[in-house]
């Protein structure tokens, strides 16, 4: 008995899964505010007003601060939008239902990754728009576009971190556990205050921040290629470990 599905139908399943994942997150006002409005407001006040306008920051500092906030803007959608939702859906039985029904695990993860990238892109575009409108930035349109593209792709790193936590935590504990990772990753990268270089190396966000700093003319050291390699390797490793975990155990109950 053949139960095969045509490539066209399979592609449609991937697309619909992604479309409805994005749609449902857009319909969640709390998530939208935290993912899109909060980074913009925080950047406008802390980044633009305090760091750039009050400090009369030179273009290099404006670029560095812009890079920091681009990183910050893509952290939430990946870690909380992707990771926390996996833990919640696992506890609520949705993941088990999808595993029992013929939903490819890859389609499920692809949809969530696309949602993280989409929200990350919108958040970083908003930050870029604020930078262009309200600071004395000397960044070109190409540099803004490059920064948005890099930070958007960087959302995949945070999605992988979120998935790693979400595939292990219960719905009850996932928010707390995610914060335990989110806050150190954010603070140790030196996004908001000076941190010794040796400590920065611990945070994955640091490598994305450095990559962005290179592209927008901010303060950067080290090899861009090495940063890209670290980001890709870390994303791949965490995703592989999480998929292994989810494949073994789609449910949390016995």
């Amino acid at each position, binding site marked *: 008995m053949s139960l095969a599905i045509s490539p066209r139908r399979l592609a449609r399943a991937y697309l619909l899964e992604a479309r409805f994942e994005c749609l449902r997150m857009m319909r969640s006002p709390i998530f939208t505010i935290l993912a899109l409005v909060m980074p913009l407001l925080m950047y406008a006040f802390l980044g633009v007003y305090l760091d750039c306008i009050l400090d009369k920051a030179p273009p290099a500092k404006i670029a560095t601060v812009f890079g920091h906030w681009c990183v910050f803007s893509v952290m939430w959608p990946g870690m909380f939008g992707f990771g926390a939702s996996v833990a919640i859906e696992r506890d609520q039985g949705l993941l088990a239902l999808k595993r029992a029904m013929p939903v490819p695990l890859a389609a499920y993860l692809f949809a969530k990754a696309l949602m993280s990238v989409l929200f990350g892109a919108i958040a970083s575009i908003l930050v870029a728009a604020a930078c262009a409108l309200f600071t004395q930035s000397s960044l070109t349109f190409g540099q803004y576009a490059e920064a948005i593209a890099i930070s958007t792709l960087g959302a995949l790193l945070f999605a992988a971190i979120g998935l790693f936590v979400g595939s292990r935590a219960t719905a009850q504990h996932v928010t707390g556990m995610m914060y335990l990772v989110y806050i150190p990753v954010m603070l140790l990268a030196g996004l908001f205050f000076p941190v010794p270089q040796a400590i920065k190396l611990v945070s994955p966000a640091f490598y994305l921040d450095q990559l962005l700093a290179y592209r927008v003319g901010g303060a950067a050291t080290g090899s861009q290629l090495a940063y890209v390699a670290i980001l890709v390797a870390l994303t791949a490793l965490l995703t592989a470990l999480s998929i292994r975990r989810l494949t073994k155990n789609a449910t949390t*109950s016995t």
Partner: protein
Amino acid sequence: MTAEKLVELSGVSKRFGDIVALDRLDLEVLPGELLAVLGPNGAGKSTAIMLMLGLRQPDLGIARLFGRSPVDLEPRRGIGVMMQQESLPSELRVSELIELFSSYYQSPMAVEEVMDMTGTKSLKDRAYGKLSGGQKRQVQFAVAICGRPKLLVLDEPTVGMDIQARTMLWATIRRLVQDGVSIVLTTHYLEEAEALADRVAVLSKGRIIALGTVGEVRSIVVRMRISCVSSLSVDRVMSWQEVIDVHREEDRLYITAHEAENVVRSLLSADAELSELEVHRAGLTEAFAKLTREVNS
């Protein structure tokens, strides 16, 4: 020629720590049949379902779905599932959920057709999170059948449904079976199994303690229940040969007997004033209670 087995659990055992959830269980589902899996809480029903669906792996034995490992994606394209604990995305509308789940299959039903069959048309544009518990179960059923599955796994499908929704679901289940769909149903409502099932498997402590048609399992308890308004004393009725048990509630006698005819004749000849006579055959409920009591003792 033997019929192709849609599901086959062959000698499967599963432990969770010290708890034996399934103990060398053999169970199969044949084409076009509705198999009801019954058992008290902790009997192993949900674990058996998880093994059938590839959500858990057996410690011993083999689980097969359409002759293949249920972990593979392809055999799962022939099934629809309604689980006991499932929550669909609350922000999506009912029609969107059906459209999404339909996309996983090669030849699904049209969304409108699914909603017609499951009585969910009036909920079409409502967000899933805003529905009542019973309405959510209806939508979960719609999602389970939308892909024209050859096998439908329904875990406690009518919990929380009102009578109208339950009646509609029963009618749809009967129609699906008539169309050749095989169904595995777990339920705590024994009348549901009695009304729908071709075969019944009773599980207790991870093993099958009875397997057969509803009639065969019911015949494990060959008893009749007779009740009537009568002034006859309990002791006198108890002395009759066929009578197993008698008790009185106000002016009504409740009699359990091996067979009804002789007892009814005796009642009518002994009490000319007797009224409101009712005779019932013992149902699946009594059989289930007897079987699980015996295993526990």
